[in-house]
Structure formats: structure tokens, C-alpha cells
């Protein structure tokens, strides 16, 4: 389940996009954030410095202090001298104060403590929602003996930092904006990179699929000189080598097949002379002396077997070379199968279920070969009763040849149509060429049908021939 959910994320495209996005976000955050923090500090520092500078400068203009201790009026004079257009000012002496009454709460104890030490001190404050700055100091007076002492008059100037805050906010917006733009650009870049990587990868995948399907001439374009190009080049080299090997193998196989065909044809001529005279030998053997007669019978039998083998070999080579052709005729299947059985003297040995009137277009000779091989095989290797059954399905005619022997073992079953395959190694060669079932299978295929071997539920082998039923109609 998790695997399935994660699967899309594992795609190269998604991984690239996520990677680029992550990198972009981290970089943008670090750069923009750092810049923001730094710029903010610089801006505030400047505002602070200029505020402190401005206040100390203003203070000089209120000296000399006329009365000490000051009264309410002289505090107002001081306050009035210190007010500028950017700031409001509060002047305190003891529990007397002038100006900006609300602001008293903004002055922290820390600030007062700092001031009482005689420093100029400042503190950033939240000025009713807006950022502000309080700068404070204590006015000093020079005594008659020249010593400097505190006057007890504290001056606080309040500055509005709204403009600076706005600048900083704009800076932040700008940073976010640039970050977003960069993110979009990074995503586009990621898509472009993914495409440039995935395009060749997809081409390779398609090409590999085609190669696997047997299109050995498949090649992929090699673009540029990057790693993907190297992979493409390697693919092409591999495909070329593979194609070469396959061509070579096919040539060798064709040579081998041609050799078999040539040998078969060469064997046929001397065999034709021999088989022509075996009837004479057979007829005479009975009158010959015992040993000579036996020798003659052996020669005769060998000639028959050899002829069958060569004929079967020639038949097989014609399938291999694709020169086997159908000579179709419309026949009654039941009549044809009975003719096959009768011609070989099997009519009495085989149980038949052959409904008449099944007409089809088949090659009668090839059908004869198939049925004769299947029934002959069943009679030799299976146990009676051997059954031949004819039936039809829509579009197909089906001939089933079954026996009641031990059936075919799992080991034998897939190989039963192999050429020269002998299930029982002890079997003698004289029983068949070893090509009968292979030829039957090829004949079924030539008809665009099939021949399948299986075991019956009740025991015994069952060969099923299926041929396309082209109904004979006028």
C-alpha cells in the first residue's frame, strides 16, 4: 500500500521537481531572510543614530537652564525647545512632567536606570501598534566651581519609526516576491531538465521494448556527449551486436536446415531405386534359404523405414522452408477419417464417434497424415480402447484421438511434438520416423488450426486437433 502511494513520487520527474523546489526554497529563505534581517538592522540602526544625534543637538539649544529646580513653566520651555517635527518630547523633573502624557508608560524602568547613570539611552517600543523609538537623557548642569552634576531633568524624545517599518515590510515583500519568482523559475527549469533527461530515457525505454519484441534494427538517436548519449551509444552498440549475432544464428540455422533438406533429397534417389525393388525381394524371400531370406527381409524392412524417414524429413524441411502448401478440398470429415482408418486396417481397433455431414475445406492428404499419426501413436503407445471423436464448435471442427493408457507424464507433455522426441528411450526406431507428431503439429498449423496434447480426466492421452471450420455452402 505504502509502496503504491510512494510509487508516483519515485518517478524521476517528480523527484527532480521536488529536489529543485527544495533547493530553491532553502536558498531563497537563506538569502532573502539574511538580507532582510541585515537590512532591517541597518535601517533601524540608522534611524536610532540619527534620532540620538538629533536629540543631543537639540538639547544644546535649550541651555542654559534658567532656574533650578525648574518649575512647570521652565520645563515647558525646555520641552518646547526640544520638539521637532519628527518627534514628540516629554520632560520630567521629579513628579512634574510636560508633554506627551500617554508616553510615560512607554518608558521602561531599564531606560530610566540607564539615564540615571548619565548616559544617553534608547529603546524600541511599540507605540500604539506602530514601531517607535524612545531616546532619553538627563540634562546636566555645570556648577560655579566647574563641576558637572545632574540637573534632575530627564528628557525623553519619541520617534515614530513607521516609515522605516514600512521600508522593512516592503523589503520583506520584495524578498518573498523574488523567492516566489525564483521558485517558479526553478520549477520551470526542473521541468526542462526533467524533459531533457526523461526524453532520451523514454526513447531508450521504447527502443529497448522494440528490441525485445524482435525489431533488431532498432536504434536510438545519440544527441550531444553527456552520460545519456553514452547510454544511447551503448544501447546502439549492443543492439547492433545482438542483430549481428541473430543474423549469424539465423544464417547458421538456415544452413543447417538447408543441409538437412539437401541430404534428404540426395538420399531419395538411391532410396527410389531400392524401394522400387523391395516388392521383388519381399516376394522372393520366402523361397530363399533361411539366412538369405532373413537378410533379404531385413534389407526390405530397413528400406521401408529409411524411405519413411526420408519422406518425413523432406516433409519437415518443406515446413521449415515455408514451401509447404495446402491443397484444399471440400470433404465430409467422417468419411475422410473412416477412409484413413480403413486404409490402414484400423477400422476394427478404433472406437469412433463420427457424426456425418460435417463438411469442411481441408487438405485431405494432410488430414490423413494427422489422423493416421495420432491414431497410430495411440495404438502403439496407449492402451485400448482408442477413440476417435469428431465434433464442431462455432468456427472450429475438432477431432479428438484418445486412448486409455497411462497417459503422458508432465515431463513428456511439453516435448511430445518435438522432432525425434522419444518418450520411451527403449522404444525401437522401426515404429516410426520420430517425426510423425511433429509433422502432424505442423500440418495443423498450416491449416491455421492447432494440435494439443493433454491427459484425459479418466486417464490416457488425448490429442485434440482443431481446424478452422470454413462451412461449405453453395
Amino acid at each position, binding site marked *: 500500500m505504502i509502496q503504491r502511494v510512494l510509487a508516483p513520487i519515485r518517478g524521476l520527474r517528480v523527484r527532480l521537481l521536488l529536489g529543485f523546489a527544495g533547493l530553491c526554497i532553502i536558498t531563497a529563505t537563506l538569502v532573502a531572510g539574511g538580507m532582510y534581517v541585515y537590512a532591517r538592522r541597518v535601517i533601524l540602526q540608522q534611524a536610532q543614530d540619527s534620532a540620538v544625534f538629533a536629540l543631543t543637538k537639540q538639547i544644546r539649544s535649550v541651555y542654559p537652564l534658567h532656574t533650578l529646580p525648574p518649575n512647570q513653566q521652565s520645563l515647558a520651555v525646555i520641552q518646547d525647545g526640544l520638539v521637532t517635527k519628527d518627534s514628540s518630547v516629554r520632560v520630567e523633573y521629579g513628579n512634574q512632567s510636560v508633554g506627551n502624557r500617554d508616553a510615560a508608560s512607554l518608558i521602561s524602568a531599564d531606560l530610566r536606570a540607564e539615564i540615571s547613570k548619565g548616559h544617553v539611552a534608547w529603546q524600541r517600543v511599540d507605540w500604539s501598534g506602530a514601531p517607535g523609538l524612545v531616546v532619553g537623557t538627563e540634562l546636566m548642569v555645570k556648577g560655579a566651581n566647574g563641576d558637572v552634576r545632574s540637573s534632575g531633568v530627564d528628557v525623553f524624545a519619541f520617534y515614530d519609526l513607521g516609515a522605516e517599518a514600512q521600508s522593512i515590510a516592503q523589503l520583506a515583500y520584495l524578498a518573498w516576491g523574488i523567492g516566489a519568482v525564483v521558485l517558479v523559475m526553478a520549477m520551470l527549469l526542473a521541468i526542462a531538465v526533467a524533459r531533457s533527461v526523461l526524453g532520451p530515457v523514454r526513447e531508450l525505454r521504447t527502443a529497448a521494448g522494440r528490441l525485445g519484441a524482435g525489431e533488431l534494427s532498432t536504434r536510438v538517436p545519440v544527441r550531444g556527449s553527456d552520460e545519456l548519449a553514452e547510454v544511447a551509444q551503448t544501447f546502439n552498440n549492443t543492439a547492433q551486436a545482438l542483430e549481428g549475432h541473430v543474423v549469424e544464428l539465423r544464417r547458421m540455422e538456415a544452413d543447417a536446415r538447408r543441409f538437412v533438406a539437401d541430404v534428404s*533429397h540426395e538420399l*531419395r*534417389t*538411391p*532410396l*527410389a*531405386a*531400392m*524401394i*522400387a*525393388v*523391395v*516388392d*521383388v525381394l519381399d*516376394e522372393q524371400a520366402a523361397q530363399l534359404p533361411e539366412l538369405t531370406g532373413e537378410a533379404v527381409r531385413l534389407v526390405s524392412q530397413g528400406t521401408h523405414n529409411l*524411405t519413411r524417414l*526420408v*519422406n518425413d524429413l*523432406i516433409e519437415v524441411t*518443406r515446413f521449415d522452408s515455408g*514451401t*509447404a*502448401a*495446402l*491443397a*484444399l*478440398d*471440400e*470433404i*465430409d470429415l467422417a*468419411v*475422410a477419417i473412416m*477412409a*484413413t482408418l*480403413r*486404409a490402414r486396417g484400423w477400422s476394427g481397433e478404433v472406437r469412433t464417434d463420427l457424426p456425418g455431414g460435417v*463438411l469442411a*475445406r481441408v*487438405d*485431405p*492428404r494432410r*488430414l*490423413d497424415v494427422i489422423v493416421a499419426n495420432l491414431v497410430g501413436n495411440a495404438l502403439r503407445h496407449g492402451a485400448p480402447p482408442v477413440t476417435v471423436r469428431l465434433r464442431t464448435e462455432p468456427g472450429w471442427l475438432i477431432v479428438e484421438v484418445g486412448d486409455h493408457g497411462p497417459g503422458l507424464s508432465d515431463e513428456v507433455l511439453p516435448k511430445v511434438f518435438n522432432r525425434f522426441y522419444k518418450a520411451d528411450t527403449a522404444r525401437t526406431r522401426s515404429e516410426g520416423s520420430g517425426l510423425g507428431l511433429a509433422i502432424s503439429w505442423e500440418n495443423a498449423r498450416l491449416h491455421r488450426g492447432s494440435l494439443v496434447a493433454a491427459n484425459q480426466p479418466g486417464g490416457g492421452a488425448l490429442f485434440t486437433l482443431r481446424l478452422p471450420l470454413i462451412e*461449405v*455452402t*453453395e
Partner: protein
Amino acid sequence: MSRVLLIEDDKDVRDGLALALTWQGHTVRAVESGELGLSALADDPTDVVVLDLMLPGIDGFEVCRRIRADTNLPIIMVTARNDDLDVVGGLEAGADDYVVKPVQARVLEARIRAVLRRVGTDARPDAEPSAVARHGTLDIDRAGLVVSKHGGPISLAPTELRLLLELSAAPGRVLSRQQLLESVWEQAYLGDSRLVDACVQRLRAKIEDDPANPRYVQTVRGFGYRFGPL
């Protein structure tokens, strides 16, 4: 029994077949080329020709055509394969039957007998005596084994004649190729239907006014052939 002319270029095969056929009682004249075969035909009376298709000099097809040009002698061809163009070509050239090499003498002998039975002399003793059946412009004398068209006799090879007799015995009745193979070619089991088709073509060329549009021997698609109805 019968006089056989064997035309076969391979000496061993020729000797073997000649020996076997002789042993079975035939008089065999064996020659190695088509040219020698044709001149032997001119010299000696012959009942049947056994002809290998692969010959040096003029090939078997040509020999077949030349024999057919002059006579209606039965011709059995010997072919290397049974499912290729050689068979069709040989049948079109006029051969009556074929056997596939390597061939057992017994098989060849059976075909020789079958083809000879089609020849007039020992054909159909049970035919209706002197009944000349008239079909359109075609007169078929089943006893005399003479076929005339517009009053003039037509020269038919034995197999063609036998096929025509078989078909015309029951005008309008459809006979399948396999039935015809059994009755005309005496093939006990599944025979090659191309034998029938080729013979029908040759027969039509001789008896039909328009062989492409036959009246007498009609094809019944999917079933076989039928004589008439006219």
C-alpha cells in the same frame, strides 16, 4: 500384360523400376531422356507412359504436352513432391495421375492398372448397350466409348472420357471430388483433389463451347461437380 515406357534419367531408379515392373509382368522399355522417350513412342506400340518430371534436355512437362498433342496415351508422372507446382504443372500438361518419389513398385503398378482400366478396351462392361445419350450438342456413346460434338468425334484421353462417363451417368447429380477420385482414379482413401480439377479443366477445353462458362461440366461450389443441367 501391358507395354510400359519408362522415362527416367537416374540409372539406378530406372533399372529398379524397370526390374520391378518387368517382374510384375509388364513389358518395359526404359529410356533416360525425353527425346529418347518420344522417339521410342514413335517406334514401338505403348500402353502407358511413366514419366519423371525432372529430366535433362526437354523436361517432363514438355514431353507430356508433346505426347498429348498426338495421342491419348495414359501418362503417370513421377514427381519429387506431392504438394508443389510440379503436380499442378504436370496435370495441366495432361498427365492422368502421379506418384511421389521414392515410390514402391506396388504403388506404381496399382496406378498403372487403374489408369489402364480407364482405357477403352476394358472399360465399363456394364454400360448400357449401344445407348447413345444426347446432351445438347454432345453425343455420348457409352458402349462404343465415343463422344461426339456437333456430330464430329472428340478425342478424349482415357481419364477424361471416364470422368465424363461418370458425371453424365446421372445428369444433374453432384459428385464430390473425393467420390470422383474413388470412382475414376480408384483411390481407396483421401486423394488429391487437384487430379479432378485438372482433368475437369482439360475435359472442358474439349467439350465446352466456352470453357470459361461451362454448360456440361459445372462446378458446384463447395460440393464438387455436376453434369448439366443443360
